[in-house]
């Protein structure tokens, strides 16, 4: 078992003919993901390697029975692509694109509230069920399958770091999810924790947060009320100056809100094992799990 994706996932790629689209589609296929279709408006009927291309998501879904989509289109067109996928009834949409205007994401979020589509991202590395399926841009060398640990993180390379350390201490992962660094995203910590909680294979969770917003605090409330398995948490940005955006559009302490201290406090209050030193998160997990 795993969450959101597994070996039965049938992926289509929106923006498959762009350079990023081609590169990461090939990488997903090399990992073992079943890529069944691509979408590039105007290139319907062509192929990218062996993957048939369609002009729109609706047609692609009809022909391929895809149930997940990976979006690798430039920021001005990404919100439209997400809504097109939701309109076509795709269950899981993973948007990698960084730099989508906040106003666009507000409209997307309100639209998705009327649909049965789960959005992961945007501005995220995607997700991976090691050994079964990868949707996104995580390195194929990452991850150790068949394990008990669910990983959820707002950051890409920080996920790689954590998963690497877990694998090094011999802890495999059920599913690793990068929820993205934007202020408005489709799937949050809380959604992932609920999914991990419902997955019999996941026996422990690592949650990697950062400054900005209060998604970590909400997740901690949920953990306190609903989760019995051990959770290890890390928060990046203790040394970040207030009022500055730290690379991620959502990573900002403003008006005294969204501080690392408040999030760490919430973790401690909800029984999450807070990791102070990122360099030792693997060791800590080994000890706790």
């Amino acid at each position: 078992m795993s969450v959101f994706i597994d070996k039965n996932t049938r992926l289509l790629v929106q923006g498959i003919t762009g350079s990023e689209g081609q590169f990461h589609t090939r990488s997903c296929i090399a990992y073992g993901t079943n890529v069944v279709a691509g979408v590039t408006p105007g290139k319907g009927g062509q192929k990218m390697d062996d993957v048939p291309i369609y002009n729109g998501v609706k047609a692609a879904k009809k022909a391929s029975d895809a149930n997940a989509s990976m979006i690798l289109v430039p920021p001005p067109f990404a919100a439209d692509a997400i809504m097109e996928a939701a309109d076509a009834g795709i269950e899981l949409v993973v948007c990698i694109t960084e730099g989508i205007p906040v106003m666009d994401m507000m409209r997307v979020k309100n639209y998705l509230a009327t649909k049965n589509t789960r959005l992961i991202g945007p501005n995220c590395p995607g997700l991976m069920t090691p050994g079964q399926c990868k949707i996104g841009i995580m390195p194929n060398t990452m991850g150790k399958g068949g394990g008990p640990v669910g990983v959820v993180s707002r950051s890409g390379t920080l996920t790689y770091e954590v998963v690497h350390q877990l694998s090094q201490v011999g802890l495999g992962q059920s599913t690793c999810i990068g929820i993205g660094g934007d202020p408005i995203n489709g799937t949050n910590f809380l959604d992932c924790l609920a999914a991990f909680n419902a997955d019999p294979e996941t026996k422990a969770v690592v949650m990697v947060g950062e400054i900005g917003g209060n998604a970590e605090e909400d997740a901690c409330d949920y953990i306190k009320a609903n989760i019995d398995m051990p959770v290890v948490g890390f928060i990046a940005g203790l040394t970040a100056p207030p009022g500055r955006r730290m690379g991620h559009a959502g990573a900002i302490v403003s008006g005294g809100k969204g501080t690392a201290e408040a999030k760490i406090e919430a973790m401690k209050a909800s029984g999450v094992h807070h990791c102070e030193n990122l360099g030792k998160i693997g060791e800590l997990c080994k000890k706790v799990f």
Partner: protein
Amino acid sequence: MKVHEYQAKELFRKFNVPTPNGKVAYTTEEVEKIADEFGLPVVVKAQVHAGGRGKGGGVKLARTKEEVKEVADSIIGMTLVTKQTGAEGKKVNKVLVEQGVSIKKELYLSIIPDRETASVAIVCSQDGGMDIEDVAEKTPERIITVSVSPATGIQPFHLRQVCFGLELPKELMKKMSALVKNLYECFVAYDCSMLEINPLIITEEDDIIALDAKIDVDGNSMFRHPDVKEMHDPDEEDPIELEASQYGLNYINLDGNVGNIVNGAGLAMATMDIVKMAGASPANFLDVGGGANAEAIENGFRLIMSDPSVKGILINVFGGILRCDILAQGVVQAATKLKLSVPVVVRMEGTNVEEGRKILADSGLELINAVDLADAAEKVAKIVA
């Protein structure tokens, strides 16, 4: 991207939001000319991107011809220090000269995106003209928040919530409703990430006017706002940060002495934290991008070397798409080209890490290898101690 007050007011006027008569001036002579045109009194306001300008002496009223000269002389060219500029302050190159208006009442109004609810929040208060954070702390009941879903846009009931919430007299409600609706349209049309008017004033003549104006436009939306892009003022930015943005790098200047080069924003923050934990202090935040290439590494080096307080550099890269051997070649190239004057600790992990380490070891450069993140932080902290 922040714009100046006078630029924000230009955007307001496009949406029929009333502002005082005003013109920008760069010299005292220009200020005097504008004052002659408008008639006295005038207000002279320093145009820098920082709050608290009034308290710092950057906003002054001039009632006589002599005062106009005096005020203009004192503000243009001054180094304005406010609680937002830091101790070094900001040099004032231009001012906004505005016709004086009579103030009956000062209100507060701002519009911000609410990330938790994916809606637009209109925040207002009867207690304008003061620090809104103080109002929020001492009398939170005097702040009204109205949440507008982008799915519906602004509706009459939102406007009623604002007007009744502010306890406005009936005869002003129509004017206020039109103004708030227009501001909302401006906010959405220009992808603002912040729009603030403090104070929004009611004049003795019962007009409602935006006496101040602050706008921050979502940097990600610049592709559809070429007019705002042109408002960018390079004088307002840290020169190293400005250069970094030209290379497509995310750089933020800090006051420590350990330079950091990291790929990915989260890992970059975590690296700063761990440097601090090891007893040193980060000189910068630098994210060269999750899929950085050799050129990005070289540019990162160049930026950090231009900061004289840096006593040691820590490179922390987790190779994913970017292979460690390619990265190592980039480091060697940059280090050779730029003649490193401070020790460099390198920690890399991920794809092709063995090949990468070999390239660094064979380079003949004095690079210090770290086995993991904790080790890297300790090594660099020891160097700068």
